[in-house]
């Protein structure tokens, strides 16, 4: 009896999936990243990430566009402004933003203004100029807009923020790919890749995949040791320095 009921429910479920299939197919979007784990090893000098996928509706049609956004782990970020005090440049005012992704990279098929409507850009934070981090603590009288612009400018100079219109290539039919280079300074953590499909400037659907950046091997062990066993780490550093010093003195000792 019980087995039979399960069977019935199972069949019903299958039928539902089958029914939903064709309806979803119109907007079906699939995407993935070339690497689920970017490992920071001793010779790490940045990583190139390939984002690829398929849009069933095709991508050749006029007005069909893709926007890809990579967002790194969010953190509080403090921006400081220097002022001249007695002839010397000193950090005087600061603003702390919360929810700022450490890394933000946008790639699209066309210029964002052509591909998307302003509403969607603002709601989904597409493109660095539409990033609106929350303001936490701020020095009184600080020009928040200037600080926000400075945050984005400095991040872009470090390649941690990128705007890459035209970087999404349509290979053929509905196949697309985009390559994004991440600098050597990428922080460790979880990253999200959102692929947005637009038709005539309106958002049709979105597909998200994830990857992680992590220190691996000896870099990970050393970092962990430094933070979890600071005493042991300090002692090892000292021992190592003493051994090297002794070796040098012994090797170069005049006979």
């Amino acid at each position, binding site marked *: 009896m019980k087995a039979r009921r399960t069977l019935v429910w199972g069949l019903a479920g299958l039928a539902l999936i089958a029914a939903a299939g064709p309806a979803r197919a119109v907007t079906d979007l699939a995407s993935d990243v070339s690497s689920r784990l970017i490992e920071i090893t001793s010779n790490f*000098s940045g990583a190139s990430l390939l984002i690829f996928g398929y849009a069933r509706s095709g991508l050749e049609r006029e007005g069909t566009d893709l926007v890809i956004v990579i967002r790194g782990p969010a953190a509080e970020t*403090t921006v400081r402004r220097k002022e001249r005090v007695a002839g010397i440049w000193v950090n005087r005012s600061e603003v702390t933003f919360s929810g700022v992704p450490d890394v933000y990279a946008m790639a699209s098929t066309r210029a964002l203004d052509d591909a998307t409507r302003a509403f969607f850009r603002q709601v989904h934070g597409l493109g660095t100029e539409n990033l609106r981090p929350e303001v936490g603590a701020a020095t009184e009288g600080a020009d928040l807009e200037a600080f926000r612009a400075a945050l984005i400018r*400095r991040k872009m100079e470090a390649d941690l923020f990128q705007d890459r219109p035209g970087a999404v290539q349509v290979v053929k039919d509905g196949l697309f790919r985009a390559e994004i280079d991440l600098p050597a300074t990428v922080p460790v953590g979880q990253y999200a890749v959102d692929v947005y499909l637009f038709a005539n400037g309106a958002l049709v659907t979105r597909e998200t995949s994830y990857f992680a950046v992590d*220190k691996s091997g000896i*870099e990970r062990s050393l970092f962990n040791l430094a933070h979890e066993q600071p005493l042991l780490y300090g002692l090892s550093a000292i021992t190592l*320095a*003493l051994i090297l010093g002794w070796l040098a003195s012994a090797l170069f000792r005049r006979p």
Partner: protein
Amino acid sequence: MQLYLPIAELSVHILLLLSLGGGVGFLSGLFGVGGGFLMTPLLIFIGIPPAVAVATATTQTMGSSFSAMLGHMRRKNVDFRMGAVLLAGGVAGSAAGVELFRLLRELGQVDLAISLAYVGFLGTIGGMMLVESLRALNRARRTEAARRKLHRHTWVHGLPLKMRFPRSKLYTSIFPPLAIGASVGLLAAIMGVGGGFIIVPAMIYILGMPTTAAIGTSLFQIVVLMGFTTMMHAYQNQTVDVVLAVILLLGGVIGAQYGLRAGAKLKSEQLRVLLALLVLAVCLRLAYDLVATPDDLYSIAPWSGS
């Protein structure tokens, strides 16, 4: 080959680091100084976060000073008793300095403090050395210097709690060495320097120690003080990058040997003039950065949120 530094969290070319260590090592071998005062600004200049640069230069200085100290120990130039008194002051100064460093980091003023401390000290020491060594150079040219007394006794020797230091041929109150030790400890923590360029002149001119004993003893106190400061930085700030320290040491110890050989060919007054000019050049460079209008007034604070 790019090398990823696990604590500094960035990649630097390994040859750049080796040549940096080698270059500073060459100069320290040439002039008989630890070279920390050059290493820290250079590390900051190539993009290492200042906090990591200071802490790691501390570790590197300890290794290279230890190497030099072993040489001086063989020649019996190390006054361990004097070293111990200096250290008693030094450890207290260093602990205070690491705490001050942490406070400055929270206030966002650590870069400024490091730069100001450097400009102040390098400017003073470099200027004094230049004047003194130029005079010595002139004197050497004219006549043989008159035979001097071992050292002149001043009021500092007469303070209470007197102690004998046979190796330094001294009988003095322990307060001046304690005070010298403490101020150098404070500098060590904030500037990542051993303070040899301050403590050696202080021992010679204030305490009246013989030059060789001053150098040997200063090396001993630098090794112990830098060890202690490394521990403090590792424990409180987690800013010691051991990979960076090892690469710098590798380059440094080799460079130092070539520096020693080059130094043997020059007169000591000439060496001091050159060292003074070098110190002043570093000072001017740092002063320029403080005064010149930065390209961008805004900066992102390193390591926020963690």
